[in-house]
């Protein structure tokens, strides 16, 4: 039983990490950036490629290869995130596109990105690993956690903590929150909203690559994971409260735990039903989610 909770928290941690990025973008530009899942997976593929390059040709260690790959691909994908806003979404918004047409456009982008990944990296699954040997998890309180999971937990906690600090302590952080609250007002007060949106897209894409690469440790990489991830992220962000950072954290964890308990008691084939049942219930009972007023 406790093991199921542990599994839920670890998966939930990853969902939370991605949902934070997703909510950040939503609060800045007010629409669901569906292609966000594919951006993260693209970044994870980059991490895989860099790690393979370092490990096989440069003879570097798996872990150093992974960390270096993570850093490089997060920055590169962060740039990509900015370009996506600047050349794809902003012209649409300037053209007077409504929220609904922005969602439809971003779904189109998701399909394009997913198939580009399929073309470039091929359809077969790729694996990122940190050690040659599959090591058995460490036992404590009748639950076992593997090395990867511990790393995921640590990185999730650290990035959530650093992110909260960044958001509330630094100037840019407050600017992002101001734009999130009310972009017109922020503009009036002199916040350069355009620059803030760039930073938001950079950070969000950075986080999504981080989380997608971590997930790849557990479930390897396939081009179709983008859609799967974004559906989970939407559920988590609605539960937590669309646009709120703390909501993203709680929403992600709740989704992870709910899915795992659903799988445990009803069988894993009902896992998605539990997740989307939760989405429907929250949209009806509390559409603004847990943390929004």
């Amino acid at each position, binding site marked *: 039983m406790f093991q*199921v909770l542990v599994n839920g928290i670890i998966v939930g941690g990853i969902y939370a990490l991605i949902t934070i990025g997703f909510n950040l973008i939503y609060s800045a530009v007010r629409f669901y950036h569906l292609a966000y899942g594919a951006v993260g997976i693209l970044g994870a593929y980059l991490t895989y490629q860099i790690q393979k390059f370092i490990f096989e040709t440069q003879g570097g260690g798996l872990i150093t290869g992974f960390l270096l790959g993570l850093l490089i691909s997060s920055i590169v994908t962060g740039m990509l995130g900015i370009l996506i806003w600047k050349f794809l979404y902003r012209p649409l918004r300037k053209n007077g596109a409504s929220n609904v047409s922005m969602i439809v456009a971003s779904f189109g982008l998701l399909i394009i990105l997913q198939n580009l990944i399929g073309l470039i990296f091929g*359809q077969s699954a790729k694996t990122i690993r940190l050690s040659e040997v599959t090591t058995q998890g460490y036992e404590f309180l009748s639950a076992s956690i593997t090395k990867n999971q511990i790393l995921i937990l640590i990185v999730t906690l650290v990035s959530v903590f650093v992110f909260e600090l960044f958001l509330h302590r630094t100037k840019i952080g407050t600017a992002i929150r101001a734009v999130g609250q009310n972009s017109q007002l922020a503009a009036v007060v002199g916040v350069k909203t355009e620059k803030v949106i760039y930073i938001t897209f950079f950070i969000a894409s950075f986080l999504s690559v981080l989380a997608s690469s971590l997930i790849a440790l557990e479930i*390897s990489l396939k081009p179709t994971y983008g859609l799967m991830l974004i559906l989970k992220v939407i559920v988590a962000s609605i539960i937590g409260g669309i646009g709120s950072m703390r909501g993203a954290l709680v929403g992600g964890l709740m989704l992870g735990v709910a899915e795992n308990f659903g799988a445990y008691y009803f*069988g*894993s084939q009902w896992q998605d039903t539990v997740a989307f049942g939760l989405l429907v219930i929250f949209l009806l009972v509390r559409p603004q989610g847990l943390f929004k007023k």
Partner: protein
Amino acid sequence: MLMNKQKHILLATMLTVVVALVLGGCSTKVANLSQEKIKLGYVGPLTGDLASIGNDEKRAIQLALTASGRTDIEVIFEDSHCNGQAGSNAAQKLVNVDQVQLIMGAGCSDATLAMLPIIQQGQVVLFSSLSTSPELTKVGGEYFFRNAPSDDKATEVLAKLIKNKKIALVSENNDFGQAFLNDLKVKLAEFDTTPVADEIFNTGTTDYKTILQKVKESKAEVLAVISNSPVSNGLVIKQAKELGLEMAYYGTDSIAGSEFSDTAQDAAEGVYAILVAANTADDRVNKLLQLYENTYLEGPASDAYTVLSYDRMNIVLKAIDAVGYDAEAIRNYLHTINYDGLAGYTSFDENGDSSILPLVLRFEDGELVPVQQ
């Protein structure tokens, strides 16, 4: 009123585009008849979850064709997207427009079952190396052949191996998984053994730790993974080892191949596989896998289906040489053939099912080695 004029122009262009495309369709048909090249069809999952195995099939056909040196034969590859409507369209196009007499393919039973009425009506031979669902034996019809053995043979072998042990079954919630699972349960019941755990997971599931937790609590001695996706097989076994489940692992035919070993890596050690055709003891198989790796710079996602598809192409070539390119003649010829293929001696019974029997193999330091029962 600009709005209306603009609308009429757009309407007109749209209609001309559609008409042009449709006519385009017909004109290529006329062109085909003039060339005397023999046209074979292939319909399989080139996108979607089974894309990697579909690509294996396609590459195996291309390898066999180049190896045979035949220039008078051309294979038209169509993607079934693992979906009924696309599969039936692909088959209809091949039968109706390309006038093929024989189609290789049919992977996901969605596309297969949607193609069967077209095959039977068009009286074209359908030769599959991927669909193993036992239900096709009855429904296939006289034009349906397959050299991949029906699952009821595999379940027989597996049932004998794991009878009266504490068994945990983890199966994928798709046509292959559920058909195999139900068949296996029936066979196990004959040996009056009932599984201690019976978990089903949706296609595309990636986190199996919670299912495996239930398997752990069921104190099973044997874990049988029933899925035709190499990634799912790999993840289940890897996560089971991470959870410290000490039990014998059994998998099905999609275990042999790079995609599974990449995902499971060293966790694959000691895993039993009930599978067909990846018998590495036969050096023709090794030569083919090596040829595949040299040509495509990566190992096949599944050795079994690559070998079966390779055999299939050679069987079709043999049939055409023997009786000419006519569906009726090929159909009768296939009933009489006993081909010495990489997957073993292949002959077809009256339902078109193949005589090939699955072997029991075991992963020993990265290699699949046959195990004597």
